[in-house]
């Protein structure tokens, strides 16, 4: 019998405590709301300050971008990628020369002389797992995820959905399509490197 009434008493008190909490939240609705009204308000970009001057500490995980003029075609990012979403094809050219009709600049911004012409540099963003692993080994800091310390180069952009899946394949190589053949040597000579294949 005591249990019967204590049950009733417990129910009433604990339920009232619960009701009080929700009522307080309702009353303080103006202050406590955490909703972000998305298309108008954007998520504030976290203020990141890694504390190092060098640009390799790029910690924002948005879409991948390649400064193709700086790429030397070393394939380190291809090897680092756990999901094989980076595909690179290169052709050997004379070291350090600019080939203007193929948009090839011989020297990177770090001063490294390029010896390979990139005929293909594709990243399939629909396969990317945003692990950031390709960013770290890059010797020229030319592949990075947009935003962060490199935001002067690329705006941060979280919304890059496409209607067509093939639009998510980002093609960075600047060699015009009709000229790829011209720079591709015959396969016998075995200069073509295709790791991703």
């Amino acid at each position, binding site marked *: 019998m005591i249990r019967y009434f204590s049950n009733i008493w417990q129910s009433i008190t604990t*339920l009232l405590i*619960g009701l009080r909490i929700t009522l307080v939240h309702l009353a303080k609705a103006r202050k406590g709301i955490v909703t972000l009204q998305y298309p108008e308000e954007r998520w504030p970009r*976290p*203020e990141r300050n890694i504390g190092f001057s060098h640009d390799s500490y790029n*910690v924002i995980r948005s879409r991948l971008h390649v400064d193709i003029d700086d790429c030397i075609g070393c394939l380190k990012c291809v090897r*680092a*990628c756990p999901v094989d979403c980076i595909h690179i094809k290169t052709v050997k050219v004379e070291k350090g020369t600019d080939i203007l009709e193929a948009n090839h600049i011989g020297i990177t911004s770090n001063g490294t002389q390029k010896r390979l012409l990139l005929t293909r540099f594709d990243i399939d963003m629909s396969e990317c797992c945003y692990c950031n*692993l390709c960013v770290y080994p890059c010797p020229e800091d030319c592949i990075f995820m947009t935003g962060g310390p490199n935001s002067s180069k690329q705006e941060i952009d979280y919304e890059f959905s496409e209607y067509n899946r093939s639009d998510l394949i980002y093609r960075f190589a600047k060699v015009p399509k009709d000229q790829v053949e011209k720079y591709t040597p015959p396969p016998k000579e075995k200069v073509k490197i295709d790791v991703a294949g």
Partner: protein
Amino acid sequence: MGIETSTLDRSAIHGEEMVLNIGPQHPSTHGVLRLQVLTDGEIVTKITPYIGYLHRCFEKHCENVTYEQVIPYTDRCDYVASMNNNFGYAVAMEELMGIEVPEKVHHIRVIVAELNRIASHHLAIGTFGLDVGAFTPFLYCFRDRERILDLFELLCGARLLYNYIWVGGVSHDFPIGFVEKVYEFLDYFEPKIQEYNDLLTFNKIFIERTADVGVLPADVAISYGVSGPNLRGSGVKWDLRKNEPYSIYNKFEFDIPIGTGAMGTVGDCWDRYYVRIRELEESVKITRQALDQMPREGDVHAALPKKIRPPKGHVYSRTETPRGDLGFYIISDGKPKPFRLKLRSPAFTALSCIDEIARGWMIADVIAILGSLDIVLGEIDR
């Protein structure tokens, strides 16, 4: 145990048992899980779990990528506690290779792992509330969990799948101002636990729904390999952070909350739930200590060769994730890719005992028991 059914004269009722499929599409299976349930009216007489809907060949994948590249895949196993999974893998690899990591790395790892534990328990508490029908605590939990995810976004740029703890260190140091932000969060968060308690934990309806329901006795729990908060809910004082300290957990003062049967029997749903609530407090404690003791200067990566090639051998190492013992069995043949990598996931064993503890209860209780076990299907199916 169970609902009393013997009062009915069974022979007089020409009822038959009905097969009910809870899932694969169901609001409260916490993923893609199918429970084939044999019901007699509302009462469940047999449960057969069918898993594998989320199987994505984690172990086969790992045999084809290098040791560094496994880390993004471990993220995706227990996707609500990725830091802890990274941590477990890193600990296993360091044991296999015999690496000593710098003091600062240990602290950083403990801080992020405990923060992620808080986030994961938030999800567990919130969805458990949702399973028994309370909607509001779920959103309160998500509100606070979001703050941790913001912290992690600040830390490593990702909100859910971090790839932050690496073999031999962490990917990079704390950003400037991060430590203050963590303190700020802890100060904000501590009073919120009382709010959950008032709103859900000591709510009479909630107690009615969870106390005495789905009792998991200690010996059954151990036999089933149930671990983590589920095991502690059964009254076993067992926590790897205390009993087999890895990293630097032996430097911190904290308690292991265990189920006491305060509202019903030891090992019921309420105990499992309340252990998680109490663990929030303990995690806050650990995080504070780690933040206080953390050396501010120092390297965040042990000296490692460019390509990780562990010596031939094997290791079984386990760490305490929010869901329990996460074991990694790694066999190395001296090549840069693992020869065999087995992940022993805590949710896998927790789910395997569902038939044992949920038989004889009602459909609504099965949902509650499933919620109290706090399973993550990404980890069960791997």
